[in-house]
């Protein structure tokens, strides 16, 4: 087990990339701490799988180095890195029994048969497949096959990291929750570094201590879930995390106020002059509906169970607000923004504010 360092890493699937747009992964420097549970979150095609495959050694990066601890493993193959990876779609060895499937990585490493037997039983118990250990893997359901893949990923105790590439896509929702809990428990028990790729924020937020959000080949933010929620570093993080995502308004920033169409919004912090497209962002959770403040036009109200989502329009720009249970929607509704919860963005990146 070791800390994973990505140093000046970039990758392009094109042989001689010319512009930055040719890179599937833009240059990045990141350190993944030993024993951390990371969730790699982002929409399809943002480079999540590429990054994962570079870490596991399936893909050789165009530029930069990958370090495990202090060892440079950039040119080492997958076997030498001793890393486990579970793929999006189940990969089982059809002609082998479930038991042989689970023990395959251990047998390939020439482990002691007695140890293999005990370890396989332990993993089988974890994924609930003790009863069918001697069955052929062929003909099992997609769920069961994916559980075998997960089991094969976890069977080696000495791996440097376990990478999961959207492993629960094919699993039904009930089982998903159970397996995620088990992964989390496994993490607590053995302390492997785990990187879990997903495009489902619930999955990411429940699994990980640290969430890594990727957008367009770049890691835009790496931090604990609260940080991603409160201070998204990029408008994409604001939009992607949270349901519904952060409200973003084009605004003009002047010191500690933002001019939003015809109205002024106090920001709670002072900002220097900003360049490019400036926006302010506020979470729907921090939009307060009441009789006073900025007038909005309510378009519709959606009941999602725990609370209601108000879809409205503020100065011609769409706005979402959360109306908690039991609260009535005022007739001429106005909104105010909770102080200190507004983030300011220049060209999509967050600008830190200073004291007033």
């Amino acid at each position, binding site marked *: 087990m070791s800390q994973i360092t990505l140093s000046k890493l970039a990758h392009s699937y094109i042989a001689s990339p010319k512009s930055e747009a040719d890179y599937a992964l833009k240059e990045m420097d990141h350190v993944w701490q030993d024993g951390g549970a990371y969730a790699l979150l982002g929409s399809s095609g943002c480079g999540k799988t590429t990054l994962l*495959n570079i870490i596991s050694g399936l893909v050789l990066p165009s530029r930069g180095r990958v370090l495990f601890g202090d060892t440079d493993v950039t040119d080492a193959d997958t076997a030498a890195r001793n890393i486990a990876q579970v793929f999006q779609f189940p*990969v089982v060895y059809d002609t082998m029994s479930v038991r042989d499937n689970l023990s395959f990585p251990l047998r390939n*490493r020439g482990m002691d048969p007695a140890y293999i037997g005990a370890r396989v039983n332990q993993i089988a118990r974890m994924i609930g497949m003790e009863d069918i250990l001697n069955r052929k893997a062929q*003909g099992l359901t997609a769920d069961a096959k994916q559980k075998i893949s997960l089991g094969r*990923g976890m069977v080696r105790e000495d791996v440097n990291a376990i990478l999961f590439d959207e492993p629960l896509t094919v699993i039904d929702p009930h089982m998903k929750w159970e397996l995620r809990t088990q992964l989390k428990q496994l993490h607590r028990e053995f302390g492997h570094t785990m990187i879990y790729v997903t495009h489902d924020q619930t999955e990411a937020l429940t699994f990980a201590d640290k969430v890594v959000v990727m957008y367009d080949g770049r890691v835009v933010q790496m931090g604990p879930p609260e940080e991603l929620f409160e201070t998204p570093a990029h408008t994409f993080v604001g939009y992607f995390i949270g349901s519904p995502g952060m409200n973003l308004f084009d605004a003009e920033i002047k010191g500690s106020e933002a001019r939003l169409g015809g109205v002024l919004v106090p920001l709670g912090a002072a900002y220097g002059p900003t360049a490019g497209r400036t926006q302010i962002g506020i979470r729907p959770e921090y939009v307060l509906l009441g009789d006073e403040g900025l007038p909005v036009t309510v378009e519709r109200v959606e009941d999602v169970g725990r609370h209601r989502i108000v879809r409205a329009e503020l100065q011609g720009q769409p706005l979402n607000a959360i109306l908690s249970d039991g609260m009535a929607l005022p007739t001429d509704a106005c909104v105010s923004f909770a102080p200190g919860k507004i983030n300011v963005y220049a060209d999509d990146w967050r600008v830190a504010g200073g004291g007033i």
Partner: protein
Amino acid sequence: MDKTLNNKAWFLVLPVLVLVAFSAVLPLMTVVNYAFNDTFGQNKFFWAGLDWFEEMVTSDRLHQALGRQILFSAIILAIEVPLGIFIALNMPKKGFFASFCLILMALPLLIPFNVVGTIWQIFGRVDIGLLGHTLAAIGIDYNYTNDPIDAWITVIIMDVWHWTSLVALLAYAGLQSIPQAYYQAARIDQANRWSVFRYIELPKMKGVLLIAILLRFMDSFMIYTEPFVVTGGGPGNSTTFLSIDLAKMATGQFDLGPAAAFSLMYFLVILLISWVFFTVMTNLDREENH
């Protein structure tokens, strides 16, 4: 809702029935007719019952031809299937050379059978053939017209040259359909090359390989033109396979009765083996989709 019954619709099937009758059923009936009758010409037939069949089943000549046939099919399957797989594994997977290799591999398959025979007949000749002459020049005593072993080797190499491509192309198609994730998982699991072949490639190729084996078995079991052109069944009877023997009997000796009985049994044997293959394959499919 009741459907209108209109038996005149059967007339729509008539053209096909007539066509199949003339192209397949009636000629086959002629064979059946000859198999159960004896004739002294002038279109006069005498009922012979199962006599011809008895004669054929107990005939040494047929047993020997059948033995040679089975040996030939077994040898070419034992060479062509592993060799085809080996070639497929080593063919480039993409890029210019992938297309190049595919075309190269397909070439032997496009040559008419009798031309293949002629090519090898000349190629192997000791006086003017490149192969035969070269072998003679380096002191190897090779002559497919005199030596039964040499004749067998020539016929087998010819068949391997002609048909290994078919196995290779089918195996290649099977390999191409394996998702990349399997190879990646194998690398993650630290499997060696043999394990990748044994547990990923071979199981995934199983379907196409069975088809390849079936096709190669049927074709080799019926082989006629190529060995006939090269060796004419000789030296002696050493390369007289079933169909060559059959042709000799029917058109050479004009023993139409035994030849007809022989061809019916021949037909049934191939039908039976093909049926076994078909059953095995459909069972495998069912197992996979289970």
